[in-house]
């Protein structure tokens, strides 16, 4: 067999897209279906080289709709599966992201965000897809989205995305941006023993008793895969626990859709991750995510040097939204500052949660991310 290793334990210098690809491999991803798009293409290129080295499947599909459809199929056939894209492709995937939600398919979708709308700015960073991540497909549902802020996190959070996706049987989104995708930094890939590998739970009953959408107490149903002898049915239609269509029943629809939402919301404490820096005594709390959070951290440090009690709440998890962390930070803060590379998206969530604390929003579009000084200036103005 192959001498090439799936897990490249050690220190490396790589860009974020490659780190994401290596994170997928480390997590056990063995199927990638994608379509070229800037600035996510390097993920596909790297996996086209790496996957065959240990028997994994790489395929370039005819478009992004086909890519996500093939990913869902591969997941149902038993492989951990991923696709990667940017705004235009993410839009094309939305209907089948809904199919993955409805059929509770573990899979990872990477969106390396660029400037939109439409073709927009293929080579520039953006954070304009973060609301689409939550609301992009029609219908109500819960979903998980993570926002890496470094090349290391492109690796770590891809591993995490697979773990969450397999645990909750939900498509998990890695919402990177052009800067974290293309930036080169040091990445340390841990030994196998330090990588959190999670596999979907399998049925604990015989095939004749198996109901593919009957949840356990955690609201997640065990998952059989094609070819394992369970001979089950899955559909994008509203279905009962047996997986059979029940499109006229309000009872079945209510029970199913509520569970799809609640399996995420009720497990939010276990899912959500944030990074808090000097938040406890902060008068001004900057809430930021992705590459912007790095400038925000620098701004907060500069503010502290100038005697301003500033803190950073970095959202590692975007969805489910870290409501409690934001509310707690807002309790003592006089002002919240939210810098984003969009016209105001996650700031709406911050405003919804903090209610009475004033929120200053700092938009930046079409060029490099915010500089520390730009964020510092807003902090100063709000002292």
């Amino acid at each position, binding site marked *: 067999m192959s*001498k090439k290793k799936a897990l490249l334990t050690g220190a490396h210098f790589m860009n974020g897209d490659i780190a994401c690809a290596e994170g997928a491999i480390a997590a056990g991803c063995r199927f990638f279906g994608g379509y070229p798009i800037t600035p996510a293409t390097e993920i596909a290129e790297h996996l086209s080289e790496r996957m065959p080295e240990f028997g994994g*499947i790489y395929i370039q599909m005819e478009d992004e709709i086909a890519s996500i459809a093939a990913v869902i199929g591969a997941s149902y056939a038993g492989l951990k599966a991923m696709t990667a894209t940017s705004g235009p492709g993410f839009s094309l995937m939305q209907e089948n992201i809904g199919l993955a939600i409805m059929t509770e398919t573990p899979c990872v979708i990477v969106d390396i965000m660029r400037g939109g709308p439409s073709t927009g700015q293929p080579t520039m960073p953006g954070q304009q897809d973060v609301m689409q991540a939550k609301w992009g497909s029609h219908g109500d549902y819960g979903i998980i989205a993570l926002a890496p802020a470094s090349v290391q996190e492109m690796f770590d959070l891809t591993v995490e995305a697979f773990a969450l996706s397999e645990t909750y049987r939900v498509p998990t989104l890695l919402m990177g941006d052009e800067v974290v995708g293309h930036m080169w930094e040091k990445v340390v890939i841990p030994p196998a023993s330090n990588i959190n590998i999670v596999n979907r739970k399998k049925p604990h009953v015989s095939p004749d008793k198996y109901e593919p959408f009957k949840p356990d107490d955690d609201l997640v149903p065990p998952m059989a895969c094609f070819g394992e002898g369970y001979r089950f049915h899955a559909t994008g239609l509203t279905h009962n626990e047996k997986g059979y269509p029940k499109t006229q029943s309000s009872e079945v629809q209510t029970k199913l859709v509520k569970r799809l939402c609640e399996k995420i919301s009720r497990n939010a404490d276990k899912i959500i991750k944030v990074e808090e820096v000097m938040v406890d005594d902060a008068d001004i709390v900057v809430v930021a995510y992705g590459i912007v959070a790095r400038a925000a951290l620098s701004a907060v440090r500069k503010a502290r040097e100038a005697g301003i009690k500033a803190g950073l709440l970095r959202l590692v998890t975007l969805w489910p939204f870290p409501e409690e962390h934001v509310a707690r930070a807002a309790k003592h803060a006089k002002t919240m500052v939210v810098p984003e590379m969009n016209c105001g998206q996650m700031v709406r969530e911050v405003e919804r949660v903090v209610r009475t604390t004033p929120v200053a929003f700092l938009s930046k579009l079409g060029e490099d991310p915010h500089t520390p000084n730009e964020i510092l200036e807003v902090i100063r103005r709000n002292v």
Partner: protein
Amino acid sequence: MVQQEMAHPFEKYLRAEMMPHIWCPGCGNGIVLNSFVHALDELNMDLDKMAVISGIGCIGRTAGYVNTDSFHTTHGRSIAFATGVKLANPELEVVVISGDGDLFAIGGNHFIHAARRNIGLKVICANNFNYGMTGGQQGPTTPLEASTTTTPYGNIEHPFNLVHLAAASGATYVARWTALHVRRLTQSIKKMLQKEGFCFIEVITPCPEIFARRNKMRTPLEVMEWYKRASVVENFSDPSRAEITPQRIVVGEFLDIERVSYEKLLHEKISQINEKTMDW
């Protein structure tokens, strides 16, 4: 009188809990399912190693009726989904059963690319010339001048010739039958299930309630009579000349060639790469 419960001879192939099916009286989809199930039985197929995938539309419900692993995908995406299944587990026999609108309008791109790759999917298209489930709109196979709910003055779009499209795109097996040609259809399905690579069978199926009535065929029987009157078997004739008109329906096997499948090439490539790696 004691009524004895008789088991359906094909019970093991069908999900009894899903019956009755949704199809109208006189619909040809049941004939397609019947032929498929007969083919499985005659080949003694291992149902644990088969996945039936369909898209949206009346025939799209087939996946739910067959007692194998099955998936009812979004509209048009059955072939793309099936591609993922086949590559992830090449041991599975992956069958796609869907309609003309699903496979050739919204899903047309996936069809031609799967055929080009020659991935080992077995595709059966029930072609009823219109969108039956949504009430009979014009589709990619609606004949010229046909009346549908969206071509009330007659269709001015040229229809696809599906067997020509499949052959030109790279399929290794291509056939067309009508719902009248039950035995030949069953034989074709059997042949397809034993072949490598991308295979395609078009089945012209009656849609009596929606399409036929608007087009001067008042009963399912009249549709069958049209098939009987107009069908000519021209095996291995040029698929580009396989017309479907009121006077003439060219049916038969058009293509039956050997070509190495995508999944075989892929796994050969993977072995080669790993051997090379060993040499280092």
